[in-house]
């Protein structure tokens, strides 16, 4: 149908690429022969810098796989993935680990935090691992943005689910990564806590200029994004700009209906 490669490669962001990450003809297949399953089928996608992108799709559509590949957590069968100008599909584990550490942030659905470290230690962990000193001012701004200033000495078990996810957001933001990937970051939260976290993600894009990619199956969560990519059977089948929850829901119903009739 459409390709997701719609944004010009060079924009006005101070000489850097306007595209933070891009995938070209990415194939991810498991097994071989008759049992071969293709999770990603020649996917092309560009992630715009400074924007909030949501990836949606039914279970098994390959949306999580796409995110894992883009984030350098998983290897691809063929194709290329670039983070800025680095081709990450060529990197060995050691370089890839460094890349994740220094240039990428993560927010998972659950188990985001180390139970042995307190909130602040969890937030600064990626920088500690890298042996970098956190930027005090930035750290304070991040902590204030996510509203955790009074809970920094608490252990994860002493925090609510929503608070834990906010710590995870703060951790992802604190190191100023080029791009943050979220794997259903609100999947385990109730709607109020979820809305809180999504607001922070939105604000970090708007106020801090953060690039954000989020996998979700929740139309409400997707409505916080600037752009929604729809995946089905390992292919990008559609996209939507400035979505509302109703639009997203309609589109999803549409897919389901088509999926059933075709």
């Amino acid at each position, binding site marked *: 149908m459409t390709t997701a490669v719609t944004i010009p490669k060079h924009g006005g962001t101070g000489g850097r690429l306007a595209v933070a990450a891009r995938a070209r003809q990415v194939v991810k297949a498991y097994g071989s022969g008759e049992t071969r399953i293709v999770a990603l089928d020649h996917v092309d996608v560009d992630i715009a810098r400074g924007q909030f992108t949501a990836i949606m799709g039914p279970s098994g559509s390959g949306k999580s796989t796409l995110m*894992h590949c883009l984030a350098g*957590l*998983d290897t691809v069968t063929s194709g290329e993935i670039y983070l800025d100008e680095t081709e990450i599909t060529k990197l060995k*584990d*050691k370089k890839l*680990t*460094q890349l*994740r*550490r*220094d240039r*990428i*942030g*993560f927010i*998972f659905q659950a*188990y*985001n*935090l*180390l*139970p*042995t*470290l307190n909130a602040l*230690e969890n937030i600064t*962990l*990626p920088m*500690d*691992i*890298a*042996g970098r000193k956190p930027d005090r001012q930035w750290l304070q701004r991040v902590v204030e943005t996510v509203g955790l200033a009074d809970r920094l000495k608490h*252990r994860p*078990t002493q925090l609510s689910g929503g608070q834990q996810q906010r710590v995870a957001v703060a*951790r992802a933001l604190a190191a100023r990564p080029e791009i943050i990937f979220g794997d259903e970051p609100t999947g385990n939260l109730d709607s109020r806590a979820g809305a809180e976290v999504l607001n922070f993600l939105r604000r970090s894009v708007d106020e801090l200029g953060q690039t954000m990619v989020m996998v979700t199956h929740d139309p409400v969560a997707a409505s916080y994004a600037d752009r929604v990519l729809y995946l089905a059977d390992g292919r990008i089948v559609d996209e939507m700009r400035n979505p509302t929850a109703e639009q997203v829901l309609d589109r999803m119903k549409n897919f389901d209906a088509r999926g059933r009739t075709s």
Partner: protein
Amino acid sequence: MTVVKTSVRNFLAHKGRMALSAVAVLLSVAFVSGTLVFTDTMNTTFDKLFASTSSDVTVSPKGAAAADEMPSQTGKPESLPASVVARVEKSPGVKSAEGAVSSMSVTVVDSENENVGASSGAPTIAGNWTRNDLRSMEITSGHAPRGPTEVMVDADTADKHGLKLGDELRTIVVTGDIKAKIVGIATFKVTNPGATILYFDTETAQRGLLGETGRFTQINVVAGQGVSDTQLKTDLAGSLDGAYKLQTQKEMTDSGRESVGSFLDVMKYAMLGFAGIAFLVGIFLIVNTFSMLVAQRTREIGLMRAIGSSRKQVNRSVLLEAVLLGVVGSIAGVAAGVGLAVGLMKLMSAIGMELSTQDLTVKWTTPAVGLALGVIVTVLAAYIPARRAGKISPMAALRDAGTPADGRAGRIRGTIGLLLTAGGVAALLTATQAEKASEGSLFLGLGVVFTLIGFVVVGPLLAGFFVRVLSLFVLRAWGPVGRMAERNALRNPRRTGATGAALMIGLALVACLSVVGSSMVASATDELDKSVGADFIIQSSSGQPIVPQAQKALEAAPHTSHITEYKSIEAKLTTPDGKTVSEDLAAADSTYAQDLRRETVAGELSAAYGKDAMSVGDTFAEEHGVKVGDVLTVAFKGGETGKLKVAAITSDDVSVDKGAKYLSIATAERYLSAERLPKNILMFAAADDGKEKEAYAALKDSLAPYPQYKVQDQTDFKQDLKDQIGQLLNIVYGLLGLAIIVAVLGVVNTLALSVVERTREIGLLRAIGLSRRQLRRMIRLESVVIALFGALLGLGLGMGWGTAAQKILALEGLGVLEIPWPTIGGVFVASAFVGLFAALVPAFRAGRMNVLNAIATD
């Protein structure tokens, strides 16, 4: 039935996680069954040997030494006249009787003066070649000895020392040296564990070994057809009027087994003791394994409870897994034990003790004991985790339990632990104040047990403290990785505590023994410096008394100012309080008072060397109310009875010659014939002033033809003492090695299971950029901290025990406390390496973990 099914399935599903526990059970069971098989095999070997070397009935003089006793002090065995053979032959039921000569008071050297006799504690036996010997041996080359210059030797000795027909051997006996050529080699038909056997013709044996012809040391009697051994013995007792000792073949075998057996028993129980320690350490490993398995399965168990399993069923299902683990580990352990026994036998032959795998004896009790021990210990260890599993509420199935950090170590637990420890410390302190060693050792034992249990109980609390302290010194250098390692080690103090405690036990024993051992060396050295005036000590390495020809050679050595003879004499003493006791007296030249300076409580020691005088130790004096001037009735063994006046009472606050009763050799000679007077067991020499080196060389030279004796100056003697204690300690450390290996397995186990448990966390860390190297380092550091924690507790505890033990042994002359800091420090540093080593596999596996799988793991 479903309980059984789920247990079996769980066991199989988690076999990887149980593997190390199984290995721990295996090792301990292998040690137990290996010990049993080995000692049973030794018993079989000796039984066969004694059965084949004993005739139907053996007639020997009353008072003849048993098979294993030390060579006789006079240098000659007890004997009976040859005329008895004729009397025996005439006795009813006798088919044949033959006089035999055999003596253990011999040393054999080759033409290079090298000792070719038995080593490793087995005897060297010389005798005449008789028909009875044909039952156990056959001549495989040459012929039986004829005439005074011919000798036959056993094949094992010939092999070991490269002896051939025609080689000359010199047999050193109390009557002089017998020089003879090897004319025959005889091979044992059964296994000979290591004795060296020499045969001469009868006359040569009688002259050389007994000093006269016409005497035998025993008569081998063969029963006529249809006459039982016991019948024959009864008949012979009648014919000989009970003047001689009669033993049937069975009695000979039994008495041989008894003497060898008591040595074997000591060895067996010592090794079983070490196996017990390994089991104890293994318990910690098994407790940890099951605790972790139960924790990881909390949800699953909650589900079982929710759908209707009773507490009992859950409990039983965990215990059943323990039974399976115990059975698998024990069966493998018994098999490994047999292998261990074979290995041990090979090792023994390498150091000169031949054992044949043909005699390998596996009694049915061995697998039974091994299996029972293995299963019982495993089930006991799994009991507490199983109970905890039973207490899991059905709600656990619904809760998102994960693996909660169990920070609470329990106030009750802490209190109990502290009380136990305090009780133990109090007992140890009481022990150091004890006035009697027996009382002290009782308190020491109590103190050891209580402090050990106390430390184990309080371990989790200590873990919190020590890990923090250790990480201040060790981990902080590693930055955030070190901090995470510290937190991980602190996360479950109970687990860290149990893992460390396992290591603690082995290392506490090492530390304790090393303190006692080095204090022994230090105390002895100190005492030698203070009391020994002699420059040189001459003693036998095999317990053989010093033969006159060697003594003559020594006395002829130049540059010596005096040479002191020292004999040990058996006697019965009747004290003024009317009691009669058997004691060994020390008969020496009066110069001995210079060679060994002794404090006296009363009287002058030099007076004790006067005519019909003696001295006693103060313990003896107190016990029997003996005062200086009292007269003791002394019945010399094999001699007459005299009345000796007590001229001095010596202090027993020593360890050398403690409680010795001195008299002069001249006094002893008044009551013992020259034949009956024991030969010197020790000799001392002093050098002319400034001629120490020359005297030392001369003495050594003089003894060159007699390699069974060694001359030592004080430095040699101290070194020898140190070496002996060091050797003993090394054996004990080696045996404790098993417990330490099990403890190290415990560290590996804890780490490996923790890695499994923390899969998700590790995945997260890797996702946000922790490199493989950092991850591995984190696990290694955690391991090092656990190991150092165990080492710190163990070494501290052990040094405490060792110090208390020394304070008690101070009553027995162990006056100097020396803590061997290099050993203690070495062990501490080595434990850090043990920690690194233990982390190898877990760290490697954690590093290889796939990031995505780790995140996706449920």
